[in-house]
């Protein structure tokens, strides 16, 4: 409770600083909260950007597609690399090196390959989300205590049972953590992709508002995006807590 009050107090203080600083600065570049509120109202009432719902819906679908692909490929590659020691030793370091490259350098070629429509955003979101999921699976497989696998074998477990009863519970934590990071990065990838070059989606609206120096609208759009991102992370953390309870 106390934490909550402190947090609200801090938020109010920040808003106050923003208000004062915003009024002092060039109104084209910085807008105080008092100017953002009407812009946010216009945005939500679909006066400034009537295409907002369609844009949000498109962005959400892009995120969904990117995430599903990232999860499927990440789990597949992770388990393949983790289970086959040779394959893992050959590919593991390359994967880690690729992960270290700032992913945004690939985006121009993704646009060339997939065009300005949704496909290039999905591809970019996938690219960002794929690595943490794969690496989490790899780390998780390494966490499995081989003795527990032997125990399960001794009690008659086959490969499927070992996977379900020993491997999954052993690595659940790491796995769910990777899935959560993967989702956050998919969201980032899709939105960044839209901002860098697209024809539709929330990123396009942001780009438009910012390009026309409609700073108040721009900030309002960013706030909407923030809600989207925080929402997806809250959802993921709920799932994480659920998995945690299941393991214990």
């Amino acid at each position, binding site marked *: 409770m106390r934490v909550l009050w402190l947090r609200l107090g801090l938020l109010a203080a920040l808003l106050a600083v923003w208000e004062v600083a915003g009024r002092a600065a060039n109104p084209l570049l910085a807008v105080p909260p008092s100017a953002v509120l009407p812009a946010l109202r216009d945005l939500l009432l679909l006066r400034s950007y009537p295409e907002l719902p369609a844009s949000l819906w498109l962005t959400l679908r892009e995120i969904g597609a990117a995430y599903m692909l990232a999860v499927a490929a990440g789990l597949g590659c992770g388990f393949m690399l983790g289970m086959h020691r040779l394959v893992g030793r050959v590919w593991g370091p390359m994967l880690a090196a690729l992960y270290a490259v700032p992913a945004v350098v690939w985006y121009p070629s993704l646009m060339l390959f997939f065009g300005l429509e949704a496909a290039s955003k999905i591809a970019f979101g996938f690219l960002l989300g794929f690595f943490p999921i794969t690496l989490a699976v790899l780390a998780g497989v390494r966490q499995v205590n081989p003795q527990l696998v*032997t125990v399960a*074998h*001794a009690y008659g477990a086959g490969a499927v049972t070992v996977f379900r009863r020993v491997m999954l*519970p052993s690595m*659940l934590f790491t796995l769910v953590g990777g899935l959560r990071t993967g989702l956050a990065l998919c969201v980032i990838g899709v939105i960044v992709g839209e901002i860098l070059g697209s024809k539709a989606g929330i990123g396009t609206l942001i780009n438009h508002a910012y390009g026309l120096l409609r700073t108040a609208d721009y900030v309002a759009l960013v706030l909407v995006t923030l809600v989207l991102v925080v929402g997806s992370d809250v959802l993921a953390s709920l799932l994480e807590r659920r998995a945690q309870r299941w393991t*214990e």
Partner: protein
Amino acid sequence: MTAARGELIAIEGVTKRYLTSSGPVEALHDVSLSVGEGDFCTLIGPSGCGKSTLLGMLGGLVAPDEGRLLVDGQPVTTPDPRRVATVFQDAGLFPWRTALQNVEFGLELQGVPAARRRRTASELLGPLGLSGFAEKYPRELSGGMKQRVAIGRALAIDAKILLMDEPFGALDEQTRVLMGEWLLDIWRRTLKTVIFVTHSLHEALFLSTRVAVMTARPGRIKSMLELSMEYPRSMESPEMAALRAKLWSEIREESLRAMR
């Protein structure tokens, strides 16, 4: 070598080699051993003499390079939890399962309905001295308790043969002695056939009907000791002292060879 009662386990000319980075190493060489039903047979010998390998073969987890192992007259090829249950050196409990759920594990794999396996496991916890600990997780249990849960997991599937790989090796001396007394009680009540691997002379003499002394690598059966004294045994009797001295001189010789 003759078994007191009907033969249950026959190990016939078993050899096992491992490939290491410095070439092949023979872990076991031409080992033969026969264990009768209801026996408590202890394998004792220097470290690295292949005791655990032999146990792994009986459990169907390791395949021999030569020779064969028979349980009930049938060759052992894969783990068969209906006939053989194993207790591992450091318990090997699943940390995400409670004590009760760990005991249930083998029954779960055999497809025993939930209510029935819960009942079987709950009934075992009493004699295991774990009545109040059913819902505890392994990290909340002491070393001795963990090992008792592991033994409970092995007893739950009610296999005739119990393989125990240094089950008390990681425990302190006092707990170890008490666990030995407890195991003796369990064994005499359940009439299992036990193959027990240990480094402890005390455990070997206190528990076993037979003791097989193994040589340094490559492991062979050096000698066989038949113990017919009544249980519970007094470890201070002159007879026991003589046996202890005899066993120690044989093991000492092999341990010295293993150290070289």
